C-alpha cells in the first residue's frame, strides 16, 4: 500500500490546503515553539491510575498544527510504518475541521487514539520531521496532534463508521483480538467479509488491555474502538482458544475460508538465575495481567496482587517502565529499575522514561541481577546485583555491558518483576505442527503478503515479528487483509 509521490502531490494541491498554507508565512510558522502537552503532576498521578497525559486543548492543537510547513516532500510520512498522510490531517486541524482530521487518520490507522498514545514517535515520524532533520529544532508534535484528533472524534460522539461493501458471505476467522487482529478485522469487514474474532481471554483487546496500563492507555478508549468494529458487523467470541476449544478442521467445517493469526508474543521469559522461583518474583506479564486485566489492586476484586514496598523491575523496555510505574502506584516506597546498560540505551519510549523519572522511579543502570534470596517462608527479600561497565559496541550499535567481577552487592526487595522480554505465544504453532516457524517461535510469512506456509493462513503482529510495536502490528493487519482479499477472490473465482 505504498503512498505514491503523485498521490501526495495531488492531495497537497487541493484548494483547501493551498488556502491553509497561505494563512501564514513559513518564517512565521517556524518562529512558533512546540506545544507542551499538559500532564498530571507526578505527586498526584502516582496515587491513582489517572491518565498521565492530559491531551491538547483546541487552541493548543491549532497552534501546533500551524508549525507544520506542509512540505512538498513530506519526510515525516517516511517515518510512519503505515504511511499516514500526516500533513493532510495536520492541516485539517489548522483548518478547524477536527472530525475530518480524524477521518484522514482512519484512512490508514485503525486505532488512532491508541497510536497517538503509544507510538514511539521520537523514533518514527517526528524523527523525520523537517524541523528535526534540517533545522535541528523540536519537531512538530505529530503524536499529540494524532491523539487530539482521535480523542475529539470519540468525545464528540460523531465517530465515523467507514462505509462497508455489500456482504459477500465469506467467513474469515481472526485469532487474537490485539492490534493486529482488530485492524485486520476492521479492514475485512469494510470489504464485506463475515468476520469473527476469537480471543482466548475473557476481555477483548489483547495487549492493549492486559499489557498497557490505564495511566497510559485507558481501557475505555480501547472499548470504544472495539464497539466501532461491532457496529461494522465484526463478531467477537471470547474464552475461545482456536486449536483447542475448536480445531482448525472444525472451523473449516463451520465454513471459515481463511484465518489471520495475531496471537501475539505473550510467553514470559525469565533469566534463569538462582532464586527466580521464590514467591514474589513474577514475570511482567503476570504482574501487569493481574493489575490491568484482573484489576487486582482494587480491593473489591477477587484476584490478588502482592506488590511490596521495595520493588525491583529488571529490564529497560516499555514493559519494564509500565511495571515499575504500576508498582509505584501500588504503594512502593522504592520502585527501582535494574538495567544492565545505560539510560540512553534503554529500549523504552523516551516519554515513558521521562514520566518515570518524574514519578520518583529509581534507575539503577549498569546493574544486573545475579541471584535472589528469600526469607524462611520462601518469599524474596534480597537481590544480588553486579555492576557492569560498557565495552565495545555490539551489533545493535550499543556498547555491550561487561560484568565487573567482584562488584556484587545486595538490595533489599520484597517484589521483583522480571521484564526481560517475551516470546511468541506457542498455542497456535503447537496446534498446527505443519506451520513453518523460526527458532524463536515466530511464524514465518511472506514479507509482502504475510501469508504463512499454510496458504489459507495469514499472520501479523508480534507472532511474526517477535515483540515489536502496536503500529507495526496494525500495519500487518492492514497488509494481510489486502493480501487475503486477493487470495480469497482468486480462490473463489477459480
Amino acid at each position: 500500500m505504498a503512498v505514491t509521490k503523485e498521490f501526495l502531490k495531488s492531495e497537497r494541491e487541493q484548494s483547501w490546503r493551498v488556502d491553509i498554507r497561505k494563512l501564514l508565512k513559513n518564517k512565521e510558522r517556524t518562529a512558533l515553539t512546540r506545544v507542551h502537552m499538559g500532564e498530571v503532576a507526578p505527586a498526584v498521578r502516582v496515587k491513582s491510575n489517572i491518565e498521565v497525559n492530559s491531551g491538547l486543548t483546541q487552541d493548543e492543537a491549532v497552534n501546533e498544527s500551524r508549525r507544520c510547513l506542509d512540505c512538498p516532500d513530506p519526510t515525516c510520512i517516511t517515518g510512519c510504518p503505515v504511511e499516514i498522510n500526516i500533513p493532510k490531517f495536520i492541516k485539517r486541524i489548522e483548518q478547524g475541521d477536527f472530525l475530518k482530521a480524524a477521518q484522514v487518520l482512519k484512512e490508514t490507522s485503525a486505532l488512532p487514539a491508541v497510536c497517538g498514545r503509544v507510538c514511539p514517535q521520537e523514533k518514527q515520524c517526528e524523527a523525520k520531521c523537517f524541523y528535526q532533520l534540517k533545522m535541528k529544532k523540536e519537531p512538530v508534535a505529530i503524536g499529540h496532534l494524532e491523539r487530539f484528533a482521535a480523542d475529539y472524534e470519540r468525545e464528540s460522539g460523531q465517530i465515523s463508521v467507514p462505509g462497508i461493501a455489500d456482504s459477500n458471505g465469506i467467513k474469515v476467522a481472526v485469532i487474537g483480538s490485539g492490534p493486529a487482529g482488530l485492524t485486520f478485522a476492521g479492514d475485512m469487514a469494510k470489504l464485506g467479509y463475515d468476520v469473527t474474532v476469537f480471543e482466548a481471554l475473557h476481555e477483548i483487546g489483547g495487549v492493549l488491555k492486559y499489557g498497557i496500563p490505564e495511566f497510559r492507555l485507558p481501557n475505555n478508549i480501547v472499548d470504544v474502538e472495539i464497539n466501532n468494529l461491532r457496529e461494522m458487523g465484526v463478531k467477537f467470541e471470547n474464552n475461545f482458544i482456536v486449536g483447542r476449544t475448536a480445531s482448525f478442521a472444525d472451523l473449516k467445517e463451520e465454513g471459515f475460508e481463511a484465518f489471520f493469526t495475531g496471537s501475539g508474543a505473550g510467553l514470559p521469559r525469565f533469566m534463569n538465575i538462582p532464586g527466580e522461583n521464590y514467591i514474589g518474583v513474577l514475570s511482567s506479564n503476570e504482574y501487569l495481567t493481574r493489575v490491568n486485566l484482573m484489576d487486582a489492586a482494587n480491593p473489591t476484586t477477587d484476584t490478588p496482587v502482592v506488590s511490596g514496598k521495595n520493588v525491583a523491575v529488571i529490564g529497560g523496555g516499555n514493559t519494564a517502565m509500565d511495571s515499575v510505574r504500576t508498582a509505584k502506584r501500588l504503594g512502593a516506597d522504592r520502585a527501582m529499575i535494574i538495567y544492565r546498560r545505560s539510560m540512553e540505551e534503554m529500549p523504552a519510549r523516551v516519554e515513558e522514561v521521562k514520566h518515570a523519572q518524574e514519578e520518583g522511579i529509581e534507575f539503577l543502570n549498569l546493574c544486573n541481577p545475579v541471584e535472589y534470596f528469600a526469607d524462611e517462608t520462601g518469599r524474596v527479600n534480597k537481590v544480588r546485583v553486579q555492576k557492569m561497565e560498557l565495552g565495545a559496541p555490539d551489533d545493535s550499535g550499543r556498547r555491550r555491558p561487561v560484568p565487573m567481577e567482584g562488584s556484587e552487592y545486595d538490595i533489599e526487595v520484597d517484589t521483583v518483576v522480571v521484564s526481560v522480554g517475551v516470546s511468541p505465544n506457542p498455542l497456535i504453532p503447537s496446534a498446527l505442527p505443519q506451520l513453518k516457524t523460526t527458532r524463536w517461535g515466530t511464524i514465518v510469512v511472506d514479507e509482502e503478503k504475510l501469508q504463512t506456509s499454510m496458504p489459507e493462513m495469514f499472520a501479523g503482529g508480534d507472532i511474526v515479528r517477535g515483540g515489536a510495536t502496536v503500529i507495526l502490528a496494525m500495519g500487518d493487519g492492514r497488509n494481510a487483509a489486502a493480501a487475503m482479499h486477493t487470495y480469497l477472490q482468486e480462490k473463489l473465482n477459480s
Partner: protein
Amino acid sequence: MQKLETTYLGLPIKNPIVVGSSGLTTTIGGIKKLANAGAAAIVLKSVFEEEIKAEANQTIGQQLGVDENNLEFFDYYDYQVKNDVLDNYVALIREAKENVDIPIIASINCSSYSEWVAFANKIEDAGADGIELNIFKLPFDAKTEADVIEKVYFDIVRKVKERLRIPVAIKLAPYFTNLGNVINRLSHSGADGLVLFNRFTSIDYDIENDQVVTGKVYSGADDYVNTLRWISVTSTDAGCDLIASTGVHDYRTLVKMILAGASSVQIVSAIYKEGPELITAMLNELKAWMERRNVHSISEFKGRLSQGRSANPEVFERVQFMRYFSGYKG
C-alpha cells in the same frame, strides 16, 4: 602387575590419561569411543561464554528491525541463547553419565564467574563429577595491574567452592608475572586441581597476501617443555592435584609429566591425529615402561624428578643458553 590408578581432582581414576576439553568430547558417540579405548576421565567440550555472546550478537545484528522497533524483544536475547546452550549441555552430561562409567567433568570458559553461578548448580544436579573453569583474560588492558587480574582467579575459586560439592579445577594459562607463586597459592586456595596449561589459538601472518591468519591448530610433540618445567617446579608444594596439558603425544611425555609430579595428563591433539586407539597404545607402553623400570604404581614414581626432590634444584631454573651449550671452548 602394574597398577595405573591415580587421582583427578581428588577423584580416583583408573589410569592417568584424561581426554581434555575439545571437539572429541562433544558427542555421546565420541565420548563412548574414548571411554572404550581406556580413557580414565572425560572433560566435556567447553561452554564458551564468548560463543554465546557472539551468537546472540549476530542474531541481533540480523534481526533488528527498522527504528529498532523490536529492540526490547532482543535486548536480553543472550540469556535465551545461554539457557538453550545450557539445557543442551545438561542433557549431554546426563546422557554421558548413563552411557559410560568414568568421571565426566564439565568445562566452562568465561571471563566473569557471577553470570555462571546458576549453571554450576545445574551441572552438579545433572550428575557431573567435577567442573573445570577456564577463566582467562589476556592482559590486553594495559591499565589493569597484575594483582587485580590475579585476584579475579582467587575470588572465583572461593565463590565456586562455596556453592558446589563436586570438585573444581582451574585451567591456567602461563601468563602470570610470578607464575610459580600463583600456581602455588591457587593450589592452596580450595581448588581441587590445576590444569597447566591452557593452549591458545595463535595468530600468524600470510606474508604473500598481507593477511592475519590462525596459527597452527594442534600442539606439536615438543610443545610440552614449558608445562614440564612448571609442574616440576611447583608439584612438591602444591596443595592439590596438578594436571599436565599441552604436547602430551606419547607415553614418554606421559611418564615425564608424572615424574615431574603431575597426577594425570590431558590429551587432545594427539587423539585428533591418531584416533582413540592412541590411548590404548599409550597405556600399554606405559605398563611396559613401568615393567622395564621395575615400578609398580603411579605413586611410586610420581614426582621422582621434581625440583623439590632434586639434588640440583637450580637446574630447573636455568633459562638462558650459556657457555655449556655454545660449543665454545675456552
